[in-house]
């Protein structure tokens, strides 16, 4: 049985009646990394948020979202809350804005842990520190005391990944986590995700419009255009030999840039990946 089965999701704007996503279905297996690609406005973010029922109240959804057989859409708010963070984790695009600016990062992390587990404070700190060191945040105690604006975007992304490592969810949903980062940090964070896959067996839904990142990290790719899933397949097939014309168009435009870039760099000092 698949870990996550999304069946006939329909998302529409409750105020205007505008249908944003008419009918989407896909599955995710354990340990699999599925990338969702598409241009801005294709509905990638909406789909992701719908999985955790995090869209704004005006955005309505229907359809079945089955996690290990349990239909998330039928859960009450209280039950859904228990799933969020514990069984499904989200990693946001903009690290700087994802944290409460008036609280130190550590306070937030400890609170989240206390919602889902009843560990003692020292146990929480112990597991957080292990996770943070493994994502490359060596000054663990310093990071915990810092306010969000005192840390860089990349560091905050790693904090979110570390939290996911501690929670060990079934599904990690990463909504364009590398889009807001500069190229070097992007590379580092993507490496963290690869490392994350090795550490815990979570399935990952990775939204991105950057095909290079997708190439590095995803097993399967889902291509979306204007709210519709246009194609799905293995990464290598989609990126090299896609069936749908839109996919070929998407790949070729990025490919042209990539080739030009490689040409400029002449293959030296280029990060392998």
């Amino acid at each position, binding site marked *: 049985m698949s870990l996550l089965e999304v069946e006939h999701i329909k998302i529409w704007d409750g105020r205007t009646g505008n249908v944003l996503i008419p009918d989407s279905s896909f599955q995710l297996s354990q340990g699999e990394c599925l990338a969702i690609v598409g241009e801005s406005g294709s509905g990638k973010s909406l789909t992701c948020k719908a999985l955790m029922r995090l869209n704004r109240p005006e955005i309505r959804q229907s359809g079945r979202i089955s996690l290990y057989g349990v239909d998330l859409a039928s859960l009450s708010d209280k039950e859904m*809350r228990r799933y969020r*963070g514990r069984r499904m984790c989200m990693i946001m695009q903009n690290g700087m804005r*994802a944290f*409460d600016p008036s*609280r130190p990062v550590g306070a937030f992390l400890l609170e*989240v842990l206390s*919602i889902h587990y009843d560990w003692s404070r020292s146990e929480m700190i112990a597991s957080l520190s292990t996770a943070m060191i493994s994502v490359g945040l060596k000054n663990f105690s310093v990071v915990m005391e810092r*306010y969000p*604006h005192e840390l860089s975007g990349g560091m905050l992304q790693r904090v979110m990944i570390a939290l996911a490592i501690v929670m060990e969810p079934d599904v990690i949903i990463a909504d364009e986590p590398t889009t807001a980062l500069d190229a070097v940090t992007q590379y580092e964070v993507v490496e963290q995700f690869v490392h994350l896959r090795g550490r815990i067996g979570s399935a990952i839904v990775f939204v991105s419009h950057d095909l290079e990142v997708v190439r590095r990290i995803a097993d399967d790719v889902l291509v979306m255009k204007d709210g519709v899933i246009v194609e799905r397949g293995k990464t290598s097939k989609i990126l090299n030999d896609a069936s749908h014309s839109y996919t070929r168009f998407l790949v070729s435009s990025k490919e042209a840039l990539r080739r030009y870039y490689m040409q400029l760099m002449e293959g030296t000092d280029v990060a392998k990946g």
Partner: protein
Amino acid sequence: MILYTLKRIVALVPLLVVISFLTFILNGLSPMNPAEVVLHAQGVPTITEELIASTRVELGMDRPLLVRYGDWLLSCLQLDFGNSYITGKPVWSLLGPALLNTLKLTIISSLFIIVISIVLGVVCALKEGKWMDLSIRGISFFLTSMPAYWLAALMVWCFAVKLDLLPTSGMGSAGSYVLPVMVIVIGYAGIYFRVIRSSMLSNLNDDYVLYGRACGMSEMKLTLYVLRNSLQVAVSVFGLAFPIILGSTVVVENIFAWPGLGTLTVKSILGRDFPIIQAYVLVLAVAFVLFNTVSDVMNVAMNPRLRKEL
């Protein structure tokens, strides 16, 4: 943090000096010779050149400007603002009690304004776009377009005349506070609650609320955190509001015959009693600057982001 506070306090000093100097030379604005004004105010029938000249010497107005300024400043610090041109009594004996009366009115009004603004602001933000939000905003819009005296007249007519419930003038019992406070509160809460509302709305739409929700936090907790962040704006707003309300109770005091600062000032303006006007300007300007500084410091203390920019 402490460094910032000290820096602000130190920066205050030159500002206060400049303000006091400007207030001092305010007298010079008047087209009339100050000595002449004194004589007018005292009701002297014939004012000759010699009388003016001798009055000038008498009042010490023939000394150099800076000397006069220094003297004046020194005596101000001892709360000696000179004597009223009209009554001859020391200014502070008139200003002091008036200030106290106005303070009583302002403090009580401010408390109500703060509470009502926060409650209305939060309610409207949480129910944004719904009936309650729209109607509260609509009514307050209307009420804040009303001149204070019109509103006051309406209330006096309604409560005092028709229902005969409350006193309409003077500063007597606790009941006499009700109408003036209501008029002031309606005028200001109507504006300030909108600030709180927009601050809350912008916070509610922020990503950290989404992430918190995604990590399993309850709506109640999230709303509390949003509230905390929104209220930071509130503190600086209310910090500034207090001296503003203090200075602009003029009309309300006039209508309700409240023996406060406003009444005194209007009387002094009509009677060209300069020392009182001068003292009024100085006291309020200093209060304003002090409140400004305190509110800025509190803002920085509460909002860690601002410290980064210092």
